[in-house]
């Protein structure tokens, strides 16, 4: 999982230079959309993300059964198209007789929620700290940057494992653990943007008009630093989903009977030979969502960062 988180660093590393000037002009949005919609991959990503979001929202109505309901006598039923499968359980059932499709649908709800929570947590924390560091400068900045150095040199998965062990095995704790690990990414991103913005004429001008620190930082500077943050947040969604699933796979995520994809995968592992669908489908779901968010994130970056446009 850390491989994922870190390997992304180089590509987003191209971002720290802020993008300037789209401050609310309607043409900016049109330009953005034109550039974004020309990217077929990005549109596909958006569509898939939208579809999963819809599934997540409508899970109780879409799922044929209750995800925790046990169907007596229907243990490890294969998918409908395989021998022995039945249309009653299109994707088959698991080892205790729960409908796999229903669990996957409810799993979308959990994974989308997890992605959202991880991003919300790490983004708000990271933006607040990064803004403080960049705006305040001096020893505050130095201290914060050393702290991010420390965080980034720690092996992230071990850090997440230790944090979950401290807080106790639980989905919400896994979210915190994964969120904590990615906070430094946001801190650095925002700080770099803030540093670049600080010297710009509009900031200097508004200071000369007597704008307070809070107003300066939050109202004037922050909005102009948001483009890379949005891109990072989209990519953070996929990281969050992936990493929480990884913790679930290691037995440190959601508690049973929660239908979380990573945990389902981990439970299904025992039956990899006799009931491979219990491993295949949850994994495909994770892959699809992560892929969609990555496509979307790449598209957003290309559209928001004119330098990368070709």
């Amino acid at each position, binding site marked *: 999982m850390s491989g994922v988180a870190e*390997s992304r660093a180089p590509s987003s590393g191209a971002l720290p230079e802020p993008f300037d000037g789209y401050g609310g002009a309607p043409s900016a949005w049109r330009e953005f959309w034109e550039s974004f919609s020309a990217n077929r991959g990005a549109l596909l990503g958006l569509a898939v993300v939208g579809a999963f979001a819809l599934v997540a929202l409508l899970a109780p109505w879409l799922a044929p059964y209750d995800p925790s309901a046990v169907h007596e006598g229907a243990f490890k039923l294969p998918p409908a198209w395989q021998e022995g499968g039945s249309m009653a359980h299109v994707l088959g059932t698991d080892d205790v007789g729960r409908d796999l499709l229903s669990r996957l649908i409810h799993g979308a709800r959990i994974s989308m929620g997890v992605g959202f929570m991880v991003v919300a947590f790490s983004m708000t924390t990271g933006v607040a700290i990064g803004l403080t560091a960049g705006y305040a400068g001096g020893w505050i900045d130095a201290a914060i940057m050393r702290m991010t150095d420390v965080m980034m040199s720690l092996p992230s998965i*071990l850090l997440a494992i230790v*944090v979950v062990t401290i807080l106790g095995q639980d989905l919400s704790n896994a979210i915190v653990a994964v969120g904590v690990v990615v906070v430094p990414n946001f801190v650095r991103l925002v700080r770099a943007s803030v540093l670049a913005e600080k010297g710009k004429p509009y900031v200097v001008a508004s200071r000369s008009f007597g704008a307070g620190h809070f107003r300066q930082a939050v109202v004037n500077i922050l909005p102009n630093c948001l483009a890379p943050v949005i891109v990072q947040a989209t990519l953070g969604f996929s990281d969050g989903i992936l990493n929480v699933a990884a913790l679930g796979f290691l037995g440190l995520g959601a508690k049973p009977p929660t239908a979380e994809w990573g945990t389902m995968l981990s439970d299904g592992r025992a039956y990899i030979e006799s009931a491979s669908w219990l491993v295949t489908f949850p994994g495909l779901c994770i892959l699809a969502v992560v892929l969609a968010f990555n496509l979307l994130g790449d598209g957003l970056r290309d559209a928001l960062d004119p330098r990368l446009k070709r």
Partner: protein
Amino acid sequence: MLAFLVRRLFVVIPTLVGVSLVAFALIRLVPGDPVLLLIGERGASPEVYEQMKAAYGLDKSLPTQYGLFMRSAVAGDLGQSIHSGRGVLEEFADRFPATLELGFVALFFAVLFGLPMGIVAAVKRNSVFDYAFMSVSLVGYSMPIFWWGLILILFFSVQLGWTPVSGRIGIVYDVPAWSGFLLVDVWKAGEGWAGFWSAVRHLLLPATALGTIPLAAIARMTRSSMLEVLGEDYMRTARAKGVSRAGVIVVHGLRNALVPVVTVIGLLAGHIVTGAVLTETIFSWPGIGRWLVASVAARDYPVVQGGILLIASAVILINTMVDLAYAWANPKMRLQS
């Protein structure tokens, strides 16, 4: 150059101190006393319990414990594992080669396939190859490797029976550890090609699983950096001067495009160590990732704090080397930071 080095050192030392403090504090925040875990259901008289705590140095105050940890760490001693009683450094050294070998082979695999994929995609931009390779690398980039590992096992080991299920080499090969890298040690043990192939076959799946994401990252980075270089003026000049297309790409393009790619490889190398945790769990690979996860569960304080410190040092070392290489290649960098 020396000034740059000194400046880096000023950053590295506080970072390492911070890492040691975080590692020390975090593992002690984990609820559960390692001594009680050892005692188990049996229980122990308060006297024996205190004796055991003292034996592991856990009877002292936390600041004292941290002070002792740091003092001996500076002297190159990371203390003894509670579980085995052996030195943390020795235990680490016993397992590190397995992780390193897996990491090297994974990275080798990633470069072997990722680099050509990126080059071809850039040169044949918007061709079928470009789309195919970039789709593959995007999928690889998004791959949950714990699932990918299972699928590889399911397909190649269980269904086809081509590759072994777990382990580093066939049991018939009796290979004493010399360098710790089995691909090397088989020759010293006189097992020859047969032993070498057995080790390779054991490496195939875990290295593929671990190398997939680096492969994708390298392919993407190579493509975009190649594209940038191909658009440069000197490329056109060289072409105009009559250098063949292939010659331009290899001699002028690739050489310049490789700089950012090497940086990415450096970054990946630093983090492949930690990426190995999941791979080692899935493939029962006897490396440091699995060991550290087990040590967290056993509350083996010295192992966890020492192990994290060692890995962080390795990551910092690699990053510093990458920076140095950059500074060496690009004098402008030396003035910044």
